[in-house]
């Protein structure tokens, strides 16, 4: 995930529910009422790029007499709360049936977000669940990515005239049995699907259709 990666930028714009742990004057515009301070314990949605940094840094706790407390950890500005994408409901849905899950409707950048979230919290349990989800769905993606070429092959066997058949099938990307599954893919999976599909298609084109 590089600096100029557009998908990465879009992922960072996903909003995370946060709870402020300090009273901060002047930051009211985050709550859409500029000019007012932000209150302790107020909840609001912040984009990940902002929430991530605010959840790490914080004000150093200062005692009444002005000396620093050594043993007390500094309280970060905000506390991140679990976003909808990783709520118990979604986790259960993933465990139940990874393939039929509509990842795209949960979050268009589900996997990228999950990677960032896991990196932030060192969440081994979630990592295992998401890995399983990805493996299960990868099999299905492979099936769908290769399905067009099977069509091409069968029709060639029947007609024996590969030059015309291929051109009708070449653009057959979203035929009916594929489309319902493809609509549930998140952006990362779409890229995987597209690459796999292109490579299957090119390989078949090379074999059957100079």
């Amino acid at each position: 995930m590089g600096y100029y990666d557009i998908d990465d930028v879009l992922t960072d714009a996903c909003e995370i529910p946060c709870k402020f742990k300090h009273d901060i004057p002047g930051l009211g515009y985050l709550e859409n009422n500029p000019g007012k301070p932000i209150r302790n314990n107020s909840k609001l949605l912040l984009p990940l790029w902002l929430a991530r940094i605010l959840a790490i840094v914080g004000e150093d706790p200062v005692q009444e007499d002005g000396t620093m407390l050594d043993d007390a950890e500094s309280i970060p500005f905000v506390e991140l709360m679990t976003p909808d994408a990783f709520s118990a409901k979604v986790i259960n849905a993933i465990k139940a049936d990874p393939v039929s899950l509509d990842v795209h409707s949960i979050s268009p950048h589900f996997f990228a977000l999950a990677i960032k979230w896991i990196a932030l919290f060192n969440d081994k349990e979630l990592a295992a669940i998401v890995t399983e989800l990805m493996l299960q769905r990868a099999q299905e993606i492979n099936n769908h990515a290769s399905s067009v070429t099977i069509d091409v092959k069968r029709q060639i066997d029947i007609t024996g005239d590969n030059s015309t058949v291929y051109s009708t099938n070449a653009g057959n990307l979203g035929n009916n049995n594929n489309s319902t599954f493809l609509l549930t893919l998140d952006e990362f999976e779409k890229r995987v699907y597209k690459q796999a599909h292109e490579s299957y298609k090119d390989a078949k084109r090379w074999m059957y259709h100079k």
Partner: protein
Amino acid sequence: MDVNIDDILAELDQDTTAVDYKVDASSSQNAINSTNDQTVLNSSLTNTKIQPTISLEKDYKLLLRHWQNERFSPELLPYPHLLMERLLRRVSTQIESIELISMNLIDNDNVDTSKNGNNLNMLPLLVMEAELERVKFVIRSFIRCRLSKIDKFSLYLRTIRDNEGGNDRSINGLLSESEVVYHQKHFNILLKIFNNSILQHLPSELQAINDTEGSVNMIDAPDWDKFVFVLVTGPPNSNFSEDPLLIKSQDKFYYNVTVEELNEDIELTVGSIYVLRYSVIKTLLTDGKVQLI
């Protein structure tokens, strides 16, 4: 009673090949002068001391290997200076010789107009031209692949260059001369665009384009953990007993590599194919003991 005479036969074989080699070297018009042979030997082209056999065929195979590795590796690999020098010189001499031959053909046409003889002469010329095109294609693809990586890792390469003193991989071993120029100029042009269009409007502490302190690192380093397909070829001179890393067990030769993050040892058997992290096989790749496919 069986007397194993394989080694005696091998010695005899070697004699004949040695004679062949000498004849070949003296008679072939490789367009390599002997000084170049020496430099190639000394600087150890593939990091191992191979026998001093430099042939057109071997160089082409080596080019294909460099090309394949470059295509699939996530990082920019060191530029094969001597190999490319030899190949480019051969390409130009081959172009010249093709021109000379075709001129001869025209002359012959004028002298005798028998079409039969003309056709016979055309075939080697066609083959030579087609072969030249093949070699040129590979070289072009190789260079373009490298240029795209230079674009991608522009900032990263600059950081390598800047701490050249501390880093053992100097930029001159990594890039060819024209690539250094390309990298420099392309970077300057890019910087100019960024500066003129957006960076000059930002506060001065945000104007750096190689900021590593911010929330996101701006320098894209190669993805060292990228998974690559690897064919384990064994030592480049196929002298299995001389390679200290190679381990033998039950008629199999294998390399032992460790995936640090998983703390796992893997045996890479010679002749088989694996999918591995690039960082694991990086040293084997630079030694020419594995090949990316």
